[in-house]
């Protein structure tokens, strides 16, 4: 049998292959030769064959048939064999296969070998890939070697011990005695690996951590020597003495000083010294400064030191080296919560990093910028962030858009600015905006009453330019549906109103319906918007036509809506105006869940019809003004008085079931007195909550007498609105102890500005004499700031033929009603 070809030869040959197929052929041929050689149990060339196998393995070819051969090499007495054998073991064997356990005995023997380089090989292999079983078996040997005076072996044993502890944490205790004088070594290798070992132990066990705290002075001393000592050629890197050891010591100090005042104080000086004296011209110096900053920020350092650390990071930000800037941004991100003001000082530099070419730096800068936005810098920051949104990669756009929305919501200096900002995001990154932004934006727009005309105009103009970005299109259609009348009448105050006709608006909306770019959800939005315009525009016939066309749409959702809207035009035309009225201001609640039904009014949920029986906002306002005049105060907020309109008793059709629910607050139609507007505010849930469903809670809050004069007594009883703890539901009970009835009884109330109040319809207008009955009425008070509840009430009624009027303040609310 001729000698197998040499490794060098093989490598050369394989490299001449011009195609993958050619290479594969060579490899297969050689593997076959190697396999037969292995079968012959050839000792002489085993080493060569395994080496070749390892080369082929690196190229990506299977080499598992060489595993046992590696074990044989390890068992050989020749150093060359052992070297290749252990290398092969590290490359080919893995702990999932039982084969690796066969190594254990060999390693054990070699750990006690007479030649330190053999011992080194086995320590290295064990420390690199030893399985838990192997570690358990051999931990004792490692521990022995940890105590040897041979520094070559000691340093390897220390790192091997680290691996053992990682694999079998219970064995940590056993290494404790050996750690006793590890730090008194002079040899840097041993020092470095010992610090790594101590770090591993402290990270894993709080007991070890407290035990090793006493080493802080010693560590400080070692670090000091490294800095103060003169040039040491052996450990020098660009003028710094053993930076690797310095960094490891700083890291251990970080762990030891965290949460401990004494240790932190003991290391204060050395940290300041390292921070100020380290050369910053090369990467190595900055590596040490970086570690120092991390340590300073994590331990209980004094504020001067912390400021020093942040300033180092600030300087890093200005460094030409990208890597340094990256590292600075990462660290600042970690500290921005705790040292916010210090980081704010570097805001402009951070914002400049948004323009960096490197993707990782840009991302970090973006995250940090959002963390730094506050009420003072919002305008400037937003300008930069919007510019960034324009030019950044698509991966960033979603996160950036969300961040901008959040920041705008928190710190918007004005409603107009807020709406402009949203418009800008929708038009530049509209397709990347998250789905839940659409309902949030709609709510925001609804609540900015004075901006409706401006908003709808801007959105309309945006639609004319581009209908591809779905979130923009959805918000725009919704707004046009709601405020189309403002658009056509050219009422905009904020900017030059545009001239647009009803037909043009309908053209745009119909365009959305037929466009390929529109998703099904968008189509649903536009159909509903068109429908709403039937009460706002005069071209009803055109709308009727569109709606009837979609009654046979393939899209089930669209078809259903169209059919229902058709029904509105035909059988239920008398309800149409009321149904399609303006949306009210929505309450913003933090939670999701039942309250969502209250708020969403069906914008996102396509199954709920997004029309309600709603008041025209302007109407109650005029009543409220009367109230203000009468009550005289400026700090009261207008009250929206409400009553339930008569509804036809009807069944069938989802549309009408929804409305059917609303008649719960029942009672006869109130007389159309001018001071009592005929409209109902609410939200589906209102109908339900105004029932005494929460009687159990009512028991918790004691009732109170609000007014008691001239025979008229008004008692308040309380319930908590379950879905929203900020809403208190008060039921008034008016009783009359005099001999004559009180007719045309009207109860009105006003609350301070921070509250919002809704009055539902009274049970009747007559308070019977001699306590024969009572009038009840439900008040809902929204108290988001949890302030003390106060109320002014006004009572008017006719008694014994003459009108009576009275005002009163109610201040004796029990604390539970508003806390």
């Amino acid at each position, binding site marked *: 049998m001729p000698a197998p070809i040499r490794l060098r030869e093989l490598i050369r040959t394989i490299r001449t292959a011009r195609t993958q197929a050619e290479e594969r052929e060579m490899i297969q041929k050689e593997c076959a030769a190697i396999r037969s050689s292995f079968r012959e149990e050839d000792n002489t060339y085993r080493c060569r064959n395994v080496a070749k196998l390892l080369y082929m393995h*690196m190229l990506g070819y299977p080499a598992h048939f060489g595993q046992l051969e590696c074990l044989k090499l390890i068992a050989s007495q020749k150093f060359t064999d052992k070297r290749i054998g252990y290398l092969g073991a590290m490359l080919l064997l893995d702990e999932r296969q039982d084969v690796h356990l066969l190594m254990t005995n060999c390693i054990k023997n070699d750990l006690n070998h007479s030649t330190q380089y053999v011992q080194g090989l086995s320590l290295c292999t064990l420390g690199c890939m030893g399985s838990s079983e192997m570690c358990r078996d051999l931990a004792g040997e490692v521990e022995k070697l940890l105590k040897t005076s041979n520094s070559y072996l000691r340093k390897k044993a220390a*790192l091997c011990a680290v691996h053992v502890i990682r694999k079998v944490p219970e064995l940590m205790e056993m290494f404790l005695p050996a750690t006793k004088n590890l730090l008194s070594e002079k040899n840097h290798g041993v020092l470095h690996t010992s610090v790594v070992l101590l770090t591993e132990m402290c990270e894993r066990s709080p007991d070890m951590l407290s035990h090793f705290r006493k080493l802080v002075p010693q560590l400080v001393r070692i670090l000091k020597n490294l800095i103060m000592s003169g040039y040491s050629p052996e450990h020098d890197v660009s003028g710094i003495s053993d930076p690797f050891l310095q960094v490891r010591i700083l890291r251990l100090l970080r762990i030891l000083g965290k949460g401990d005042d004494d240790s932190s104080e003991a290391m204060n000086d050395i940290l300041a010294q390292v921070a100020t004296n380290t050369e910053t011209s090369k990467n190595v110096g900055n590596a040490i400064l970086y570690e120092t900053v991390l340590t300073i920020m994590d331990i209980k350092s004094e504020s001067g030191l912390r400021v020093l650390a942040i300033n180092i990071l600030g300087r890093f930000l200005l460094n030409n080296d990208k890597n340094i800037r990256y590292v600075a941004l990462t660290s600042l991100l970690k500290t921005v919560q705790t040292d916010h003001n210090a980081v704010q000082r570097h805001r402009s530099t951070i914002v400049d990093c948004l323009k960096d070419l490197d993707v990782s730096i840009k991302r970090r800068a973006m995250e940090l910028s959002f963390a730094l936005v506050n009420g003072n810098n919002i305008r400037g920051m937003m300008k930069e962030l919007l510019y960034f949104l324009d030019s950044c990669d698509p991966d960033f756009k979603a996160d950036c858009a969300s961040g901008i929305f959040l920041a705008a919501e928190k710190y918007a200096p004005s409603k107009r600015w807020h709406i402009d900002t949203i418009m800008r995001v929708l038009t530049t990154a509209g397709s990347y905006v998250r789905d839940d932004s659409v309902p949030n934006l709609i709510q925001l727009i609804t609540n900015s009453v004075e901006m409706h005309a401006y908003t709808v105009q801007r959105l309309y103009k945006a639609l004319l330019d581009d209908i591809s970005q779905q979130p923009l299109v959805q918000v725009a259609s919704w707004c046009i549906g709601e405020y189309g009348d403002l658009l056509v009448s050219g009422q905009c105050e904020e900017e030059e109103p545009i001239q647009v006709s009803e037909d043009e608006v309908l053209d745009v909306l119909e365009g959305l319906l037929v466009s390929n770019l529109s998703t099904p959800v968008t189509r649903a939005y536009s159909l509903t918007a068109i429908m709403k315009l039937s009460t706002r525009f005069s071209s009803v016939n055109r709308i009727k036509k569109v709606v009837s066309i979609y009654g046979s749409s393939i899209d089930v959702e669209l078809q259903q809506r169209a059919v229902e809207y058709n029904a509105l035009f035909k059988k239920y035309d008398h309800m149409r105006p009321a149904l399609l009225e303006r949306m009210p201001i929505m309450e913003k609640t933090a939670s999701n869940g039942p309250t969502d039904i209250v708020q969403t009014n069906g914008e996102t949920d396509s199954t709920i019809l997004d029309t309600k029986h709603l008041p025209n906002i302007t109407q109650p306002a005029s009543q409220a003004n009367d109230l203000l005049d009468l009550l005289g105060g400026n700090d009261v907020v207008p009250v929206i008085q409400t009553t339930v309109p008569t509804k036809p008793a009807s069944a069938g059709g989802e549309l009408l079931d929804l409305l059917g629910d609303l008649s719960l607050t029942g009672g006869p139609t109130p007389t159309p007195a001018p001071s009592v507007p005929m409209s109902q505010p609410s939200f589906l849930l209102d109908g339900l909550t105004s029932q005494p469903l929460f009687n159990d809670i009512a028991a918790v809050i004691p009732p109170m007498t609000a007014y008691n004069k001239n025979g008229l007594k008004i008692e308040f009883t309380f319930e908590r609105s379950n879905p929203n703890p900020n809403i208190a539901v008060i039921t008034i009970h008016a009783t009359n102890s005099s001999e004559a009835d009180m007719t045309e009884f009207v109860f009105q109330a006003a609350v301070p500005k921070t509250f919002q109040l809704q009055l539902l319809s009274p049970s009747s207008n007559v308070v019977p004499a001699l306590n024969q009955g009572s009038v009840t009425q439900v008040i809902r008070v929204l108290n988001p700031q949890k302030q003390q509840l106060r109320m002014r009430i006004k009572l008017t009624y006719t008694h014994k033929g003459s009108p009576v009027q009275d005002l009163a303040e109610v201040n004796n609310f029990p604390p539970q009603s508003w806390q």
Partner: protein
Amino acid sequence: MQFMLLFSRQGKLRLQKWYVPLCDKEKKKITRELVQTVLARKPKMCSFLEWRDLKIVYKRYASLYFCCAIEDQDNELITLEIIHRYVELLDKYFGSVCELDIIFNFEKAYFILDEFLLGGEAQETSKKNVLKAIEQADLLQEPRHEVL
């Protein structure tokens, strides 16, 4: 450190050192993905990137990329120094090292690495000591051209 990879500009692997237990298939997948990611980076970009839940530190020396995966608490800048130290060791050993040296003497590259790092951590911070140990160990071997 979890692993170190050396690969050429064409994506050919020249050295792989794994300090975490993974099966061959996993290693191949990680190698393939990471090599692709790093090779796609433009020259002006920084040496660090986030990949899966690891931090990747890489540096190019001539035609070879040196790529390390470190954990969250490890210092990226000092890892660059570790890479640099390894290159210096190779350079001293081979005398102006180039990619071919590492291709034809890959087992030596491993031996040098194993004298410098153990279990993913530096075991010796003195260049002199690492080279001395390699030298001494080489003396215990039979001449390479005879054996391999």
